[in-house]
């Protein structure tokens, strides 16, 4: 028979641990749940202090009403186009460069890899002014080129990390595969494309998924380089058009509509939803990314 002492000794720490874990989960989920709940409230419910979690009236109109001030169709299409193109660029360029750093035997390889990683330290503020002038002279301001072209040249968002991830994954694959293929007459790039890249599928997926989130949520650069509705990404549309308190930049007079607070939370939910869904279905790849890099390497 299990005694009281057994229970105290073995069950209560576990119970305590679960309480702690659930507490933590609540803290992490609270803001998201809260905004989702507010987004289906009417304004009266939101103002009513007796309503905290369960609204009196289910009000899904917020979602429909907010689409217009958000310029939803334009901004969603823009962001999707930007994100998908940049994922392609980021995956291709970082895979190729990572392969070069893994399989190549050229002098200065390790030093150059350190330089690639060191570029992470450069604060974006330092490059802001020259980028602005560069893009201005290339006539790239207010075009998606601002993000798309760098992503194809290994300068996408957090590209050094992607290159490093690919290098690490290629390093773990046996070099004998290459030797065998070379004997059969395969060239350097054929080895990359037909043998190593398919084997590094998990790295391709990880880089792609992370890039999706990074580009979908990008804000710091878009706010400087995008000034017209033509290229408005969804993060900026959430910031400018939905927020009546916002002053400044080219979007100011865009939104004469009145946006209520629950509508704003509906916009927040809409913006979050694609990343959230993607994450819930593919969380394995996000959570094992660090292990794939193999930090000790």
């Amino acid at each position, binding site marked *: 028979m299990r005694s009281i002492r057994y229970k105290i000794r073995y069950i209560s720490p576990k119970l305590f641990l679960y309480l702690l874990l659930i507490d933590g989960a609540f803290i992490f989920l609270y803001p998201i749940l809260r905004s989702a709940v507010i987004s289906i409230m009417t304004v009266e419910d939101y103002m009513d202090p007796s309503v905290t979690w369960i609204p009196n009236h289910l009000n899904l109109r917020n979602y429909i009403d907010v689409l217009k001030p958000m310029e939803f169709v334009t901004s969603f299409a823009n962001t999707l186009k930007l994100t998908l193109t940049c994922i392609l660029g980021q995956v291709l360029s970082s895979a190729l460069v990572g392969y070069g750093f893994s399989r190549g035997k050229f002098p200065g390889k390790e030093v150059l890899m350190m330089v690639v990683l060191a570029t992470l330290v450069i604060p974006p503020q330092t490059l802001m002014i020259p980028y602005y002038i560069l893009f201005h002279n290339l006539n790239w301001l207010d075009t998606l080129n601002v993000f798309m072209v760098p992503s194809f040249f290994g*300068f996408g968002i957090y590209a050094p990390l992607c290159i490093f991830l690919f290098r690490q994954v290629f390093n773990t694959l046996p070099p004998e595969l290459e030797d065998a293929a070379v004997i059969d007459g395969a060239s350097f790039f054929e080895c990359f494309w037909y043998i190593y890249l398919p084997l590094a599928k998990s790295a391709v997926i990880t880089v792609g998924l992370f890039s999706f989130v990074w580009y979908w*949520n990008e804000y710091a650069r878009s706010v400087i380089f995008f000034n017209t509705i033509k290229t408005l990404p969804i993060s900026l549309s959430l910031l400018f058009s939905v927020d009546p308190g916002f002053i400044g930049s080219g979007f100011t007079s865009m939104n004469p509509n009145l946006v209520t607070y629950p509508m*704003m939370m509906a916009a927040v939910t809409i913006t979050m939803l694609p990343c959230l869904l993607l994450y819930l279905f593919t969380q394995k790849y996000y959570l094992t990314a660090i292990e794939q890099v193999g930090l000790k390497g």
Partner: protein
Amino acid sequence: MKLTYKQKNVIMSYIAISPWIIGAIIFLIFPLFFSLGLSFLKWSFNGSTFIGIGNYKEALLEDRDFWYSLGITLGYGMISIPFTMLFSLVLAILVNQKVKGIGFFRVVYFLPVVAASDVVVAKIGPEIFSKMVNVTVTLETFGVRLESNIQNLISLFSAILVLGMWRVGIQMLIFLAGLQSIDPQIYEAAQIDGASWWKSLWAITMPLLAPFTVINMVFTVIESFTNIFTIARVLAHGRSITPFFMDYVYRISFEQYRLGYGAAVSWLFLGIVISFALLTYYYSQRYLITYQSNE
């Protein structure tokens, strides 16, 4: 001439990394040198004049705003780094427990990193803080210069800190990878020797975790000096009125159009961030060596 296999490999691998090299010339070396050159000029729309190190002199000797925003930024970093490290370590230990359903909790704890962009965080933020402190109003009264109001400073820092720590998932995963790399047999041996949980934490986990702590530290230094301000910015409804360095540069460059001076202060900031990252790396590396040789 026939190339040997090895020579071919060298040429081919240069071609493979050539996208990055071309990218580096266009998007890294050129912009860096351009802004370095700009920092020696007194720039204006109709012609610039070379003034040598005049911009740097002005920033270091005369500009109170420069020192103010630099102090706030570095101060925030110094406060946020230990908090972030500690919090992510606690979370990593929590999700490293071998109990049923732990996968679910890992998913939940990492979720804000994915779901909550800077804009989303800042939009939801005021809702959470409305009962404690109205951050936006704080930022507004804050303005560009803080007139020795320590109360405002504390509320601003704590708000950004809490919102930043909400997205601590990456650091948590780095620590988790570290914890999982430790051989469980060491703990078993310690338990047999009668070590308490607390004792094993200090004597086993912390030393073995040290390499991961270094990486985390460098990552957090970069994060908290460069990327965190977008939250402050959005909390201020997108206006560049926050006291952080990024907004200071933005005001100078894109509102007063003093591009030369803006480039100069950016370079000063670059130097400071890099030396901080290097110092962190160097000292923790040294600590690591002495720590491990003492065992």
